């Protein structure tokens, strides 16, 4: 599925070509970053030094749109420009829509227009934030609400992961080319999203990520969803840019309440104070999207848990350490390990980086 006009392809490749120069020339502060995209080709070319201008002009002169389409075809990627019906409608609301949207699977993106939720948050979340992000992702995935996020470390990754674990469809919006797995830590997650969901970007394949492209990417995330949910964000978090974009676009913004003493919740609590919707569970999201009570999160498929498994799960949910857990449920050490392993394989518990068991959803 490749439907993009020559002009739009040209524009998107020029931006990619000049991305490094823009990074170098941008003044500090993030306000101006996405505005760069409003500048026309000639303004951009005038801003970079003469040497770069020469090479950019030479590059554009040698640019062959058909060859670019051929490369996309070979790589199995999709692309649509704003002038075609394949272009996601939500993006048209943007002041500066991306000239071309590249995607691993454009068909999946079009299929669930109008029902997407953006689930984003801090790259350094607390354990609480991680748990909430995963639960929301999972609940939304199970309810058939596609989860849009940014493949960043922390909340984004867990939102994607939760949605995938529930068999849902998730969309990762990247700041680099759709064939570039960045950050590298999330490489496995990236592969899974390419397989079961969709990866999209306004940058052509192969483009490297630059700092200024992330705020620009955030506007695409905001535009793709009907609702933007912030799980955890500090006072001056990049995540809030997405929330700002969403409210500018007239989309709903919601936030997960956090501890008032936690720095990492200052941004989300601030959003709530200024009137954002309150989200504590996937049901809240469904209520915000479709009206209260219109739809409900499907009951998780009946896990035929034995009484022992159920009581172990309860204890893990209460945050019990493994040794006290064993004493409390009266199992032999080996048996307890086996029970925990079964619960993990059912996706009911997971292990933190330090190896301790915590509840998954």
């Amino acid at each position, binding site marked *: 599925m490749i439907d993009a006009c020559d002009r739009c392809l040209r524009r998107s490749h020029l931006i990619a070509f000049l991305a490094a120069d823009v990074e170098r020339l941008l003044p500090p502060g993030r306000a101006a970053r996405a505005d760069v995209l409003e500048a026309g080709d000639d303004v951009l070319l005038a801003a970079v030094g003469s040497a770069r201008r020469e090479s950019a002009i030479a590059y554009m002169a040698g640019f062959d749109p058909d060859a670019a389409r051929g490369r996309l075809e070979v790589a199995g990627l999709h692309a649509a420009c704003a002038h075609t019906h394949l272009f996601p409608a939500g993006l048209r609301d943007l002041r500066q829509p991306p000239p071309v949207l590249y995607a691993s699977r454009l068909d999946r993106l079009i299929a669930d227009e109008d029902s997407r939720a953006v689930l984003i948050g801090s790259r350094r*979340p607390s354990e609480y934030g991680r748990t909430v992000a995963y639960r929301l992702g999972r609940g939304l995935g199970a309810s058939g609400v596609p989860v849009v996020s940014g493949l960043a470390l922390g909340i984004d990754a867990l939102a994607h992961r939760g949605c995938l674990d529930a068999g849902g469809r998730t969309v990762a919006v990247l700041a680099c080319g759709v064939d570039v797995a960045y950050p590298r830590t999330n490489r496995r997650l990236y592969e899974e999203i390419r397989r079961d969901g969709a990866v999209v970007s306004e940058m052509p394949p192969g483009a490297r990520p630059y700092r200024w492209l992330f705020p620009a990417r955030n506007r695409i995330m905001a535009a793709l969803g009907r609702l933007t949910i912030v799980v955890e964000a500090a006072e001056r978090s990049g995540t809030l840019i997405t929330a700002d974009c969403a409210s500018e676009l007239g989309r709903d913004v919601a936030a997960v309440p956090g501890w008032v003493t936690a720095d990492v919740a200052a941004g989300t609590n601030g959003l709530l104070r200024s009137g954002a919707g309150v989200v504590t569970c996937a049901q809240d999201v469904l209520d915000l999207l479709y009206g209260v009570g219109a739809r409900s999160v499907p009951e998780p498929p009946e896990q035929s848990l034995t009484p022992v498994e159920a009581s172990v799960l309860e204890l893990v949910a209460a945050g019990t350490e*493994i*040794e006290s857990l*064993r004493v409390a449920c009266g199992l032999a050490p080996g048996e307890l390990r*086996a029970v925990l*392993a079964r619960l993990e394989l059912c996706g009911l518990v997971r292990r933190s*980086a330090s*190896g301790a068991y915590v509840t998954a959803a």
Partner: protein
Amino acid sequence: MIARVRTFALEGVDGVPVTVEVDVRPGLPSFSVVGLPDRGVREARERVRAAMGNSGLKFPQQRVTVNLAPASLRKSGPSFDLAIAVAVVAADGKLPRAELPDGVCGELSLSGAIRPIRGALSIALAARRLGVRRLLVPAENAAEAALVDEIDVIAVPTLSRLLDLLRGTWAPETAAPAIVSASDYEGGPDLADVRGQADARRALEIAAAGGHNLLMIGPPGGGKTMLARRLPGILPPPSLAEAIEITKVHGAAGLGRGGLLTERPFRAPHHTISSAGLVGGGVPPKPGEITLAHYGVLFLDELPEFSRQALEALRQPLEEGVISIVRGQRAVTYPARAMLIAACNGCPCAKPPPSCSCTELDRVRYARRLSGPLLDRIDLVCELGSAPPPRLAGGGPPAEGSETVRARVIAVRRRQTERFAGDGIAFNAGMDAALTHRRIAISPEAAACTAMLERLSGRGQDRVLRLARTIADLDGADKVETQHLDEAVGYRMSDPLQAAA
């Protein structure tokens, strides 16, 4: 006149024969040593001269040349002193025979007393291979050397006593072998001292039973070190051949206790150790901690604090059971068949959960500091909670002692010995990918469950299967059943750790 005396040098942990030749001929009085001696050997000249003087002998006022053959072998250390002194006396015509059939080893003090040497057992073994009938060694080393049969070991206290012996005016008894304890107190620490932590005790037992390397994760004070120290006590006692190897290694490193070491060594190097300290090295090469832990346990506490270089150097010996070191023109091979136990905290701040403020990213970073190649050699990961309060821990029935656990481990090891007869390995952890598939029988129900293993990488699956095999062995089962597989999955590495590996 020329005299010859047999002595021995250490190469790695093995003794190799060296012949000391001394030529005394008229000329300007001089004393030169040839045959690739290092500084320590050259210094023998002063010690021999003084010791002879203080033993009532006259040093020949002639031209004395000492050759240490074979000249191609680099020789170091003071253990040739005694042989050189005896050869000088013989070449001077003060002994009945100029060619001595006995092996002679020892360091001389200036007074003529004889000081202990390193590697007495290795030397005695080399002497037996060479067909030497009588070995003359320092008194402190006699009991260790006497462990070798078919050879008479005689303890010599001083140079003059030695000469009396060679002249036939002193006829001492041959030395008797001795068995000593490697640790300072009888039998080592007991597992019964560890209250609570049943989950970690179980992990330790599985590790011991199958020879699996173990990583313990938990807050400080949770008992990680306490548990690790008790591992040698639940491993089967070393066989005679193993005990001899252990003694050889310790003797060669100068850590011998003057007899057969019949307990498995436990080495816990500090995390500031260099890679040469850990796997051996230096000039002249010395065995490292992994070699000192041969047939025993190497415990690395605070694993992420070890230098990456040191940890990565460990990988090859852990895999192959030996470490070869090449320094300059010499290559030595040390045995290195140790079980690895590692421990680390769950997060960089190491505080218990309520007061810990580490983010998940901090934890992932901390986990990533663990060396991937090393984690690859670890089959079993167990996280410990903080220690139960003493009030709680004191109650309840006393925990099982080391002897009870050891009996189970020995039984399980026996099953494995039967299973791997002819495979060249002794326990489950030694299985490579091919053996893992050939030797592990899985029950049909469990085979249906192996689908869940597909989330793991190929090597991760093998690890879980090997571990499940050991758990089944502990259960006395011939086939791996579902519950064994489940339990093994419970001890596998968490995903962030795996991502690091």
